[in-house]
């Protein structure tokens, strides 16, 4: 069934959009990532103009994250206090990110920098997480029965002032690291047009030392606020949010997110991390390939001026 999208001004298959939304939704619920880093390239691929894809994707992430976070909420795996602290950093970061984005845009080459930062970040985050979680998986197999994990190291994060108790995460740490993490993710989110979950999740686990189960819900909670903010920004400045496209994607997405959350609870934390790492590396490889291999069409068209 073909449907003509009013803002994107292209006609696409409605069922394909539902399917795409569903697939990305499953991943979103499983890993606590918004799925933007997967969906945005997919939308480019089916011919949605990039500006519309990025803006609409933000809107869709709001829906799938909200659907996912409700499931976590009932299981009490959302650390609201941590989410709010991250959010404070996130909003500052997003504002900074918009400034950086406009600066890069005035220099041209913003496209390249987005791609490069994707490759670098996904590569680092993915490989670190992959190695670490594989190790953890092997250890948990080797040890007969659930061995109590070694007491978390007290790294630099625990020595800073302004300490706050995060009961859900079982942490008593300074608020400065979460704010910094939130800021970093906010900057990236604004530049790359994604929720930033794929960076937020590992940062929460490895820098803040939060338990994996809490991380997913908290990350989703934080993503909702950031992407809602981004959606409003795109809608009011660029007029590029396509409601029809968003509805199709989010119908698939919210259902997928529910299924994903169910799958997520059945997997072990280490398995979940290995899978997310593999996924991140896969996307990274694809983007690196685009940069390194000679494209079949050397030229590309960008419509300048006006909307669309």
């Amino acid at each position, binding site marked *: *069934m*073909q*449907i*003509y999208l*009013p*803002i994107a*001004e*292209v*006609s696409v298959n409605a069922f394909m959009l539902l399917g795409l939304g569903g697939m990305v939704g499953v991943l979103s619920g499983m890993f606590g990532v918004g799925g933007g880093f997967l969906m945005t390239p997919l939308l480019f691929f089916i*011919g949605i103009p990039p500006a519309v894809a990025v803006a609409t994707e933000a*809107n*869709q992430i*709001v*829906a*799938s*994250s*909200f*659907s996912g976070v*409700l*499931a976590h909420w*009932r299981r009490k795996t959302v650390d609201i206090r941590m989410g709010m602290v991250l959010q404070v950093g996130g909003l500052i970061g997003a504002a900074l990110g918009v400034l950086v984005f406009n600066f890069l845009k005035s220099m*041209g080459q913003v*496209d*390249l920098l987005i791609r490069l930062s994707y490759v670098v970040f996904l590569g680092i985050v993915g490989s670190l997480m992959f190695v670490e979680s594989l190790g953890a998986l092997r250890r948990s197999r080797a040890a007969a029965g659930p061995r109590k994990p070694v007491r978390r190291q007290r790294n630099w994060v625990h020595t800073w002032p302004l300490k706050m108790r995060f009961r859900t995460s079982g942490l008593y740490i300074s608020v400065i690291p979460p704010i910094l993490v939130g800021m970093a993710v906010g900057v990236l989110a604004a530049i790359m047009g994604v929720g930033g979950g794929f960076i937020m999740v590992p940062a929460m686990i490895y820098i803040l030392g939060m338990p994996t189960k809490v991380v997913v819900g908290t990350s989703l909670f934080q993503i909702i606020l950031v992407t*809602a903010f981004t*959606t*409003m920004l*795109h*809608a*009011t*400045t660029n*007029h590029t*949010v396509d*409601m*029809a496209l*968003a*509805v199709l994607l*989010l*119908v698939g997405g*919210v*259902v997928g*997110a*529910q299924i994903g959350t169910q799958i997520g609870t059945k997997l072990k934390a280490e398995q979940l991390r290995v899978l997310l790492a593999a996924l991140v590396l896969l996307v990274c490889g694809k983007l690196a390939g*685009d*940069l*390194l*291999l*000679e*494209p079949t*069409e*050397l*030229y*590309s*068209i*960008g*419509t*300048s*001026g006006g*909307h*669309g």
Partner: protein
Amino acid sequence: MIRWIATLVIALSTANAAQAQQMVADLSQSRVSITASFAGSHILVFGAVRETAVGPQEPFDVIITVSGPLQPVTVRKKDRVAGIWVNTEEARIDAAPTFYNISTTGPMADILSETADLRHSISTPNAIRAVGLTEDVSEADAFTEALIRIRRADGTYTEDEGGVTLIGQTLFRTDIELPSNIVEGTYLARIFMIRDQRVVATFTDVLGVQKVGLERWIYTLAQEQAALYGLLSLTIAIAAGWGASATFRYIRGS
């Protein structure tokens, strides 16, 4: 439609003979509505020619072009820099049609002279006004060619040599497919009557392409009430997220 053509022929025969030949034409519809289920459309362009000169006439050819609204575009070219492929050069084309279709009675090279093509901007490269290309680009033509190549691939630029059918030595017609990825605006249909590679008569008509119904409403809201539109989008997102969650809970609960 036969009646329309009959009317055209009558109109022709009563027309004043200022030139050696006259031409009238029409489109099967003057408006195309883009609805939510819009998946392309097709229009019929037809017309008739009357020779006013006495005696037998040489055969003629017809070229029909349909052009979409003009938009500025930037064409970028990738090059390998330090091992990675990046956009290095770009050219701005001030006005390129978003849609361009040419239908002819025969091969363009045979029936139309280059001078006539230039004068009337008929062929696709000539229809793209590349006057505003930036100075620092070495190969401006390559950029125009790339634009045409990319747009041909996505079906917005088409050429149909032999697509115009002549009926007798008077009537002509062609079918033009509008793809589903066309944009809103006023489309211009031009019909050229060609003899000895020269344009001897022209006729133009307009075709309005418009979003209607829900499409129109969403588009207008997004442009004019942006904040409201953004909030509405978010409300839909939140409601859908909550709805799915509640539904799944209900399914599992029961």
